[in-house]
Structures are given as C-alpha cells and as structure tokens.
C-alpha cells in the first residue's frame, strides 16, 4: 500500500501534472484496450507515472484499498512498479501454470515484507477463459493492519489478464467484495484488433 502512495506523492512533489484521478462510471469500461468489464456503481481510478503496468482503482483511497487490474501483460514483463530496485522483482512468463501465477502474485504482494497466507486456490473462469481464483490474508510490517484479498487471473494467447483486490479485513473488504466479484464475473477479453489492411 505505502509504495504506491509514495509513488503518487513523489510525482506530485515533482510538480508533475500527470497525476490524475478519474471517475469510472457504472456500465461498460475497457482497461488497456483488451479487458472489458461491466461495473455496478462507480470507482476511482488513480494514475501517476511509474506505478507499474496494472491500472489501480480504489473506493476509499490508496492507503486503504486497491483494485489492481492487469490487461494484456506480455511475456517477460515486470508486474509491479520498479522504484525499489533492491527488492526482488517479479515478471510474468507466458507458460506459467495456475500455481505459478499464484506464486508470482504472492511474491509481488509481499515484496516489501508482509506475512502472507493463502486461504483458497481454485479453478475459475476469468475473461471468458480458464483461469484461477485465489483468496489471501496478509499484514504489512509497517502498518500492522490485517488485510484480506481476492484475485482472478488467466493467460490468454500468452498474455496475462488479472484482477487483485486488497483491503483491510475489518470493515472494508467485506464492504466491497461483492462488487469486486461482480466485476470479475463480467470481465471479457477482447480480441487484438486486426491489423489494418492497406
């Protein structure tokens, strides 16, 4: 949680005008041209440079909850922001199986040092294809706040599409979980637009 917030605030300090918060309205929305979701009720989308390849949405603010959405991540791509280069890095590989995808996300979530416990790992459809759904519990060492998470992931034509939602176990995760599950169920992977013919 803290790293992303720090990224955003540092961008602000740099008088960078590219920090923006956008309202994601109910209805059809497309993330990164390839992942379409249909949402019930608005969300807040926060963007700043160097936040990594996922799109980050939130209901209560970055220090509290984060919905990370991955759309069309390619083989070899690093799946997080690259600010702390002394921490271990995690990249996606096209040939990853479900258990490897789960390990990769676990590694990313615990990069800064958190306890982590998987509570459920099961097959699931996501984006219209076969994928994995997992639930987890974690506590970051700085905040000492117990968090709960749910995630969906699938690999389609060698590209990663995924959604991870992490929020405090008390109050917030239960409050927003149903809407997150609904977003995941509505997800559709769009075909790569055909190359224009000349």
């Amino acid at each position, binding site marked *: 949680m803290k790293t992303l917030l720090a990224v955003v605030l540092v961008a602000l300090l740099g008088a960078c005008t590219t920090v923006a918060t956008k309202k994601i309205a109910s209805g059809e929305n497309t993330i990164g041209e390839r992942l379409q979701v249909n949402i019930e009720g608005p969300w807040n989308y926060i963007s700043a440079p160097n936040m990594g390849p996922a799109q980050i949405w939130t209901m209560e603010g970055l220090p509290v909850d984060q919905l990370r959405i991955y759309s069309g991540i390619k083989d070899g791509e690093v799946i997080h922001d690259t600010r*702390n280069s*002394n*921490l*271990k890095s995690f990249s996606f590989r096209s040939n990853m*199986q*479900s*258990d490897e995808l*789960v390990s990769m996300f676990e*590694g990313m979530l615990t990069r*800064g*040092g958190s*306890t982590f416990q*998987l*509570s*459920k*790992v*099961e*097959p699931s459809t996501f984006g219209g294809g076969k994928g*994995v759904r997992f639930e987890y519990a974690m*506590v970051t*060492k*700085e905040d*000492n706040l*117990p968090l709960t998470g749910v995630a969906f992931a699938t690999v389609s034509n060698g590209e990663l599409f995924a959604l991870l939602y992490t929020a405090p176990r008390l109050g917030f995760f239960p409050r927003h979980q149903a809407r997150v599950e609904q977003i995941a169920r509505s997800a559709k992977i769009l075909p790569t637009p055909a190359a224009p013919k000349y």
Partner: protein
Amino acid sequence: MNRRRFLRAGCGCSLGALPAFSMAQEPWQAPPRFVRPDTASDEGGLWAMMDREETKLRRSPFNLRDPQLQPYVQDIACRLGGDHCPDIRVYLVRTPFFNASMAPNGMMQVWSGLMLRVDNEAQLAAVLGHEVGHYLERHSIERLRSAKSSSAVGQFAGLFGVVGLIGAMGLVAGQYAYSRDNERDADRIGVLLMNRAGYDAAEAAKVWGNLLLEVNARPNGAARNPLFASHPASEEREATLRELAASLNGGVTNDDAWQQKTAPHRRQWLQEEVKRGQHEESIAFLTRASTRMHGKADYLWARGEVYRLRAGEGDLDSALKDFQAAAALGGEPPETHRGLGLVYRSTHRAAEARASFERYLQLAPEAADAPMVKNYIQELSV
C-alpha cells in the same frame, strides 16, 4: 582476588590496544544489573525508543507467540544472562534470516532463520550468549555514539526494531556493524557464558562453519550477504572460537530436545526459507540439515521444492529424487506429493501426476489449494 573487568564502553579507550589473552588467565565477571538511565541522556533516549519498538513488536504479526517454544528459549537466555536474567525479554520473530539481537533495554529477538539453522541448544546458546555479551558490555551505546555523529539514530534504532528493513538489513548493518573488537569480545564472552550455563563450547565454532557453507554456495560469492545481517561469518572467526573453546571442557549440546521443541514450526520455517528464492544457499543448508536426527523428510521435501522451483539443468530429476526419498522415509509433508504431481505434470507423466495429486488430497483434504489440485487431476484424466 584479582579481578579484571573489560573496559566499559564510553571510556574512550581502544580495546585494540589490549594484549590478546587466553581464557585461562583472566576470569571475566559480568557487571551488576543496569539501572534505567535518565530519558534526557543519549542512552535514555535510545532506551525509550527501544521500549516503543518493543511495543510494536509485541503487537506485530511477526511475533511468534508460542506458549511452548518462547518460554523454552527464554529459559536458555535467562541461564546465559545469570544475574541479568530478570532484565532479558525474549521475542521469537518469524523471518527466514539468520539473526539474533539484544537491545540496550533488554529486549532480545531471535529470528526463525536462526532457529532453523542451529542443530542444537548449544549452538543457539552460542549465538544468544554472544548477544548477551554485547548487552553486558554495552557495545550498542558505543555504536549509538558513532551513529549520532552521522545523524541517523532512527535507522540505528530500526536495527533492533520490528523486521522492518530486511531488504536493507545488509546495508544498514554494514554502516552500523559492531567494531571488530566488539565482535571479538562478544565472541569471547559468549563462549564463557555458554560454558558456565553447562553447554559444550565447541559448538560455537560450528555455527559459523555451517553458515560459511551456505555463504560460499552463493553464486556471486559472500559479498555482504543480507542473510546474515549483522553477523558476518568468516574463517577467522570460526578458528578463533575453536581456540577459545579448547580450554573449556564438558557441557551438553541437547540436540534431541532442541529438534523436538522446534518440530511443530519446522515446516512453516522451511516454507519461508524456500520462498526466499536463494536456491544455492538453501540447497547447501538443506543438504546439511538432512543429516539431523529428526525431520529428515521435511528437509528433503524442502530441498525438492528448491530444485523444482529452480528448474535448472537436471533439477527436476533431483526434485523427484528428494520427494521420493522423503515419501520413503514416511512422515513427509503432504506437499511432497503435490510437488511430485507438479513435476510429473510438467514432464508429461500424466498417470503418475494424477496418482501423486490424489495422494496429496488424501493427506490434506482441507488444503487451501485442494480445489485447484482437483482440477489438475481432472485435466490430466482427459
């Protein structure tokens, strides 16, 4: 009686100027118990900071509050501390790095990476005795003084704080490492305390010898290895400790008691070790550990996992061998069969994969990933 005390920190004397001495000549005595210093002094400020770090540690999810293991380790620390026993408070911390530390206010941390690596009570006592040595000689106050002049007391406090700066541990420890003289003194005192508490002092040298095995296994060498935080291993140190112990005979090691007391945590600690992703170090450690009396199947399973995850040339075969050996011994973790299943699956041995996954589900029907494994079985049945 001719008693010789070590020069107290803060006197400004250079300990390096002292002639080297052997254990036989100079019987060292611990100072009397410390009194809490005035908050406005350097030391008092540090003490108060430690108190607040201790409160955070107490509430932290990394605090391993085990009603069996904690009192057991507390007792060992207590016997090493002698008269200072009432001032020592032991916290077991869940983190896979090799470290123990003792803050000036009496808070002692023992990390699970250390508990996993020592073979017996005596080796643990060697490390804890070393820390008590730093505490009794107030080396951290000395460190604080030099830290203050480079204006980073907060960072220094973090060394004793919650797991906090693990990734940067190597860097911070480098900046604030105890001086070599302090380290030598702590080694000397540690060995003495071990011996007085009834432990075989010869085990002290083994701790570092074992660590060196791991350090040397690392592909890019032993350069500032974060695994070892503030306790650099070295051949010199190992040799010195062997020498110090030469004149101290007798004492127990308590291999059995230690391995049995830690058994309930072994798999958790091994999982965290594997997740470090430092394959060569883990293999070196696990190879050594698999020669222990207890828990062989666990160590073999863990090494199999490391091979499976590294997946280098010949590694999948090594993984299979280890998993199969663990299963043959009996008492293996259920994950052994999941590991077998995953390797068979990736090498297109469907029937064997199915059988292994089914065995895993039999042994661990409530596993978090049971639904995913069931799905693997179905896919392999097509």
